[in-house]
């Protein structure tokens, strides 16, 4: 008898767990689903109920010069941020993992620090600094700020991979006659590639998504996608914003996914080049 009761209890525990899990997922994804669904709504009010299917908000977006400009700005900033941050990340991780030098501990903490400090504080801080040395807010400042925000994550990713690359590979390359630079280029970097790609994608997403710090740093008259959405929201909740949000989701989720798929297929292609043989 007790056995069946315990079984009953177990069943209820499972049901409860399942219920909570479903709730959490709804909470996480409902806003995203709502945004995407409503972007196809024919009604001119950005909410339920749906009155019909329409692509008019997307076509409206395509003709909205302000939105297109913001999209281009964000894309460029994100690309430059990804490129520069990845370069910095690889070099920093290499130095932190392969060399012993005084102040190494301090440096590795300092590099991570921007990820720990609240973004608003960083935003204000950089702004105050710029004011103090009497410099205008420029695009360069905005890009530098994004780099600052993304570097910690990229360093962490590349560092983790770097630790896994054993030093003997580099020693072997050196003993065979490759200079330090050649051994880095031919051995270390190729082995580091997954982290490089991953870091670049993450940096891109961090930059493309960033709102609060960008609000502080952007030059007058320049909007990034997130700040553009914010300023549009101030006027009204137009369904156009839903369409814009859907595009944002597509870019920030799609690009890392695409990158991952490309990486995977590249490694698979390499494997397929030579059938795996069982050998003694």
């Amino acid at each position, binding site marked *: 008898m007790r056995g069946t009761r315990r079984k009953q209890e177990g069943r209820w525990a499972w049901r409860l767990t399942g219920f909570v899990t479903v709730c959490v997922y709804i909470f996480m994804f409902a806003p995203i689903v709502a945004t995407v669904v409503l972007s196809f709504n024919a009604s001119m009010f950005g909410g339920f109920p749906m009155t019909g299917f329409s692509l008019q908000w997307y076509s409206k977006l395509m003709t909205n010069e302000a939105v297109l400009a913001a999209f281009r700005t964000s894309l460029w900033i994100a690309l430059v941020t990804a490129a520069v941050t990845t370069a910095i990340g690889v070099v920093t991780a290499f130095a932190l993992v392969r060399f012993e030098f005084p102040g190494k501990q301090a440096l590795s903490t300092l590099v991570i620090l921007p990820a720990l400090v609240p973004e608003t504080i960083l935003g204000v801080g950089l702004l105050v600094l710029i004011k103090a040395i009497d410099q205008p807010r420029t695009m360069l400042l905005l890009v530098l700020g994004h780099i600052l925000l993304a570097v910690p994550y990229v360093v962490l990713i590349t560092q983790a991979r770097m630790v896994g690359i*054993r030093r003997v*590979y580099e020693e072997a390359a*050196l*003993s*065979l*006659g490759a*200079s330090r630079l050649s051994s880095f280029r031919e051995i270390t970097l190729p*082995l580091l*590639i997954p982290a490089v790609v991953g870091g670049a994608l993450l940096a891109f997403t961090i930059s493309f998504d960033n709102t609060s710090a960008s609000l502080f740093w952007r030059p007058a008259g320049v909007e990034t996608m997130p700040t553009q959405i914010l300023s549009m929201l101030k006027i009204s909740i137009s369904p156009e914003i839903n369409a814009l949000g859907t595009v944002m989701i597509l870019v920030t989720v799609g690009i890392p996914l695409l990158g991952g798929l490309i990486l995977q297929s590249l490694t698979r292609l390499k494997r397929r080049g*030579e059938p795996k043989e069982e050998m003694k």
Partner: protein
Amino acid sequence: MPDSQNLTEAPRPETAGVAKAGAARPAPVGAEANSPAVEFRNIDIAYGKFVAVRDFSLSIRKGSFVTLLGPSGCGKTTILRSIAGLVDISGGQIMIGGQRVDDVPIYRRNIGLVFQSYALFPHKTVFDNVAFGLKYRNVPKPEIKRRVGKALEMVRLPGSEKKLPSQLSGGQQQRIALARAIVFEPQVLLLDEPLSALDANMREEMRVEIKKIQKETGITAIFVTHDQEEALSMSDRIVVMNAGSAEQIGTPEEVYERPATAFVADFLGKANMLAGTVSVSGQGTATMVLATGQTINVACPRPLAQASNVTVVVRPQKLSVGAAASANRLSGRVVSASYLGGSAIYEVDIGGRTNIRANASISGRVLREGEVIDLGFDPEGCVLLDESGRRIS
């Protein structure tokens, strides 16, 4: 994709520069032909306060196979890495082919290095791995192809060019690593415990293989191991290392038969050490009383002071058992017996602090635990050590 580095492309400017610099270092010719392949002159190596190698000197003849043998932490790997330039020496000189290499960076030293963990580049094919050293020496493409093919034949893995290291077994990977290290005909081949990652069967096979390839190519090889069997079977000369310096340098027979110190006697083959005092010492022989009470006669190269403390070193194989034990009879009880087919190993308690090990061929039956056993050894079949643990000569 950056990791599918194609070897058929022309060397890039900076790599070509390196290759030229490497090629500019001439192989020793003429007058230098008589100089040793590698020479250490009183080198010291220290990591901060820890001295890993102390006042180490060694001269290695061209074409010879020298083994650095010792327990872990004795400095043998450090010495090997110092030849490669992976470790900086803090004193003394290292010469390769008669030239000082103290300030020559590793990539210009022209040495072949084989690691314990193979260290094949995982993202490169077997061909690209083996061709790596040739590429940096400005060897033309058809020549690279020919020499890689030849090297792969030498390690008995022809046709494996297109495979990736992950598709090879441990033994095969180590063969490729060997091919990669010898294909550009380095002045010295350095082997850092290349067999210890392999399983027992493979290890024995590779031992023979490495030795064969070394003989065929006539390359000077320096081999690091903690395995005495490997050292004894492969080497022309063995350097027994302990705590950062050489205890003994000699042929395998010399270090085994005539250990210079107690450490060498113990490390190579776990010799029996019998403590005793000299009672009578004459021309060529000495009579001594062991701490366990027995009186024995031993060959002795010089007269010894009466009552001086001496240790007699006897190999387990030099002890005969039972009726064959004629000279220097020691009686005791069998503590344990291991039957090995052709022979048996007995641990015998003769009353001392440590048991005596005897490895004797079996005549009659194998004695069991607790039985009385007679051991004996020839007066010539032992080595005497003085109080400080050095061989009396």
